[in-house]
């Protein structure tokens, strides 16, 4: 579960938030940013239900 939680946290903090900041700084193309954010979204919903259910 710790691995899943780590993936969840990284998916939104890196693939969504950090990627957004990098795009703002001009390091990442807008199209790549949108793709990475979608990957982050998929990872979040694929992993979070398992550890969140466990914590409940």
């Amino acid at each position, binding site marked *: 579960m710790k691995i899943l939680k780590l993936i969840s946290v990284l998916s939104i903090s890196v693939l969504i*938030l950090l990627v957004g900041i990098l795009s*703002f700084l001009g390091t990442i193309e807008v199209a790549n940013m949108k793709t990475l*954010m979608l990957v982050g979204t998929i990872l979040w919903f694929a992993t979070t239900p398992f550890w969140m259910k466990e914590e409940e």
Partner: protein
Amino acid sequence: MIQHNIDDDYEELAVGEFERTPVPKSRLKGWKSFLGMYAGEHAAGTEFMIGPLFLAAGASLKDLILGLFIGNILAILTWRYIVAPIAVSKKLTLYYQLEKIAGKHLVKVYNVVNGVLFCFLAGAMITVSASAVGVPFDISFSVPESIFGLSSAAFSGIVIIVGIVMTIVAAAGYNMVSKFANIAAPWMIIVFAACGISAMSQMEVDSWKSLLTEWDQGISVVQSINGKVDFGFWKIVIFAWLCNAAMHFGMSDLSIMRFAKDSRAGWGPSIGMFLGHYMAWICASLMLAAQIKLTGDISANPGALAWSVVGWTGIICVIIAGWTTANPTIYRAGLAFQSLFSSKAKAYSGVILAGVVATVAGIFPTLSSKLLDFVGLYGTILGPMGGVIFVNHYLAKKMGFTEDYADEKGSSFNVAVLLAWTIPVALGLYFIFAKGLFPAYAVIPCWIASSVLYVLIMKLQKS
């Protein structure tokens, strides 16, 4: 705003247990658990709609940043010093507390009014979700001039389909949706932030000054099309303070905070308010500024705005935000409407009725574009009942009138409460609709008027 993104914990506290008895000591929670409970509460589908409306209404960015800050602080203080002390002292739900003062029949009237307002809110959320569903099909969402004007036939069709799906899910019970909302909440907050950052990137903002310039240019474009509009600093403060007036001044959150060990639970909404009604609103408004710069389009279409800045993630976020907000709202409106049906009616009859009303409301996009006005109206209509509860709690003994009148006297309809509620609200509605008063401005005068009127009528009745 308006919080209806309910997780399991919240729902258990809101309606699940001890509906007609004070919460026992063993079930009380520390104030910090309320911070977590409210954290995702105010980042909902409404934020995608409300944020852009500030820019469309002509609010300056500096006013928005400072005004929202002060307004949110005032709202948190209201929860802390108006709601929490009564909740901790009585430990009763709003509805049971009201029943003790107003009588069970008057509470039914209040419930139905509440249900109707919930339906309009849910309707706006159906519009928001439909705006996102339409983007992949290239179905745009335009706001007609007339309140009851329709958008395109295709968009109305999407609204109906989304409304039917939401109603069916709500009728089946919303446990699954509330669990899903719980999972989605942290992701949604991060997506809001990403939307704001990406919007600034699209505007090629590289300094505070350039951000202000882009914002002001956005307002100029809006004003060149819509004419001069103004949404000044104090209007922002009042709106941010009172957009949740039904929850704090109106005492709706007694149902939540009755589980608190002490009044510090009133600080519970702090984090949620600043995530949803500060960060999310500002980020959502930046999306419109970016759209205006890129296309000159001033329409606040949440789906198109989110699609433009973060692509599919934005579309998914708008749909989920709208869905997880509308669903419990339809469910709660349905519970309120259920009292209209005979006891033999199916348990989901109220929810179906609420879903139909919400879907019909959602077909008219102008209603969702008037969300700034609607939430003020919501507080104006429901808030004053909180004033009655307030004076009943603090002044009944001191001023020599009966506390919890209906309960003490065995009354099922306390006319004093009806008058104290409806007279100020009728006056407030007159000023809003006939004189064009901004609805949020009416909330506190109506709340004070109801409080004073209830004391006077009760004293008069006694003498």
